[in-house]
């Protein structure tokens, strides 16, 4: 039972990690809460659904297409909403509220197009899982874990090794100084939105292999992504990875004793405890919850 809960926690956590990583990549360059990130995640799942089920494209190809399109959605949101706000040097809260607006708009657009009912991408039969130290893990779940780990590793290498990744870190540290040495922050922000949103899209696609999809799925995802980012240490990439796994495991261990409906409650209680007692998160970043 215990091993099973840990495994479930790691699987749920690996999805949170992807959402939190995408959120973090964007947060590092723009320094505001991109709440609409959640709806990009939902859009990723729905686009994958359209390609696989409605158009009959091979699942693997359609997943890559969907992740790419999710990246493009991220760029469109940035260009249409955030860029004008950035030009006017709007305060963070205005960005957050506008982001809520985008979230509500796109979520209901999805509902208008696809209907409010749940849809499912899985067409292949459900196979019995592998037994592993008294716990069961299915092939799909192994795929989710592997894909998530690969994306984490890929992002890590990208940020550490490539020129664009280095430029992104420079902008994250100090946007003005980065501009002085000839890095165009707008280009970096564009890249951050593309990469971050593609990660969210990928997370949405992966979760749709395991569960049903519905228009409201983005809300839960972004809340968990934000919580994972804050408890890991906002703006920190290892922090987002650690926070996501921590949250996934904590939630699943929590429902060991109480019913599953309390999951969200557990997550937010953890968040509030962190905000109050360790606002810098586990990684202890300085820019965490500002205190008076």
């Amino acid at each position, binding site marked *: 039972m215990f091993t099973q809960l840990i495994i479930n926690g790691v699987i749920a956590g690996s999805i949170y990690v992807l959402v939190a990583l995408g959120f973090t990549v964007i947060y590092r360059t723009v320094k505001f809460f991109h709440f609409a990130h959640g709806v990009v995640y939902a859009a990723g799942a729905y686009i994958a659904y359209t390609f696989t089920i409605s158009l009959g494209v091979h699942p693997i190809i359609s997943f890559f297409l969907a992740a790419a399109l999710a990246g493009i959605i991220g760029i469109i949101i940035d260009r249409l909403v955030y860029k004008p706000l950035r030009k006017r040097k709007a305060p963070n809260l205005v960005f957050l509220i*506008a982001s809520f607006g985008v979230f509500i708009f796109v979520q209901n657009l999805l509902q*208008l197009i696809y209907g409010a009912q749940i849809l499912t991408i899985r067409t292949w039969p459900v196979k019995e899982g592998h037994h592993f130290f008294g716990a069961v893990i299915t092939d799909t779940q192994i795929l989710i874990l592997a894909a998530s780990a690969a994306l984490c590793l890929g992002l890590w290498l990208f940020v550490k090794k490539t020129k664009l990744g280095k430029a992104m870190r420079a902008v994250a540290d100090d946007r003005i100084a980065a501009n002085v040495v000839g890095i165009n922050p707008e280009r970096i922000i564009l890249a951050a939105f593309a990469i971050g949103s593609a990660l969210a899209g990928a997370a949405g696609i992966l979760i749709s292999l395991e569960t049903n999809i519905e228009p409201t799925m983005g809300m839960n995802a972004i809340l968990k992504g934000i919580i994972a980012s804050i408890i890991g240490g906002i703006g920190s990439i290892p922090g987002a990875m650690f926070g996501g796994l921590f949250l996934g495991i904590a939630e699943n261990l929590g429902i060991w004793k109480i019913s599953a409906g309390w999951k969200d409650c557990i997550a937010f209680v953890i968040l509030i405890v962190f905000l109050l007692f360790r606002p810098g998160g586990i990684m202890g970043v300085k820019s965490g919850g500002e205190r008076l």
Partner: protein
Amino acid sequence: MEYILHILVITGIYIILTLSLNLLVGYTGLAALGHAAFSCVGAYASSLLALNYGLSPWIGLLVGACVAAILGVFIGAPSLRLKGDYLAIATFGSGVIVYSVAKNWVSVTRGPMGLPGIPGFSVFGLQLSEVWAYLILVAIFVLLTHFVIRRVVNSPFGRILRGIREDEIASLAMGKDVNKHKIIVFVIGAFFAGIAGSLYAHYITFIDPSSFTVMESITILLMVVFGGMGSLPGSFVGAAILVIFPELLRFLGMPSSVAAPLRQMIYGLLLIVLMLKRPQGILGKYRWK
């Protein structure tokens, strides 16, 4: 006619919610995104007292508002140590927690099944059942809320609130107890939200957690921002337009599977356009910093 009166009653309830949230958001500059939590607690407390103990809705209303105010202290005191975005996320989180308690504490709240058969108000032994009677009742509470909040914001206390909004550190330097003021504001806001929740419960006679989601909190925030931050007439305008306007969609003969998301899409779009073009709202004087 009945329908129009019903819409007006709902508008009145939203005006109470918008006025009380405006005190927090517009006058004190606190980004509180969990306002529906307070009306949820008020509604449930009042309904449960009436259903389980047969108490008069009038007592329930008062108790509900007080319970909401106490919740205001509990949510306010810890979250006020945070600022800006973080306060927004923390209050949003408390909204999720309260919603999730209402949904999962089945033995008390009956969870998603909701509480049916909540008794209505009665005056001198006379049961209020007509919609127009409720309209008068709600109108009285709207005026009462407006009166109290106007007195609060125009008092020296209100001046300190605006001081906190404009420059918190300067207010501290002037020797004002910023945290105490913030908590009092939270309590007043929560109290009136509790009244609104209780009125709603006894008017509709049925509540379930889906009436108090976090989206509801965002809708109330939209009403505040749309009408005008830090403007009491703005709260009337904001709540009235945003309740009545989407009702017009009904007359276009749209099925509810189209009208419901369309209405939300308009809300979302409105939030974006407001933030881009006029972040202080129609009648507002204050912008977020």
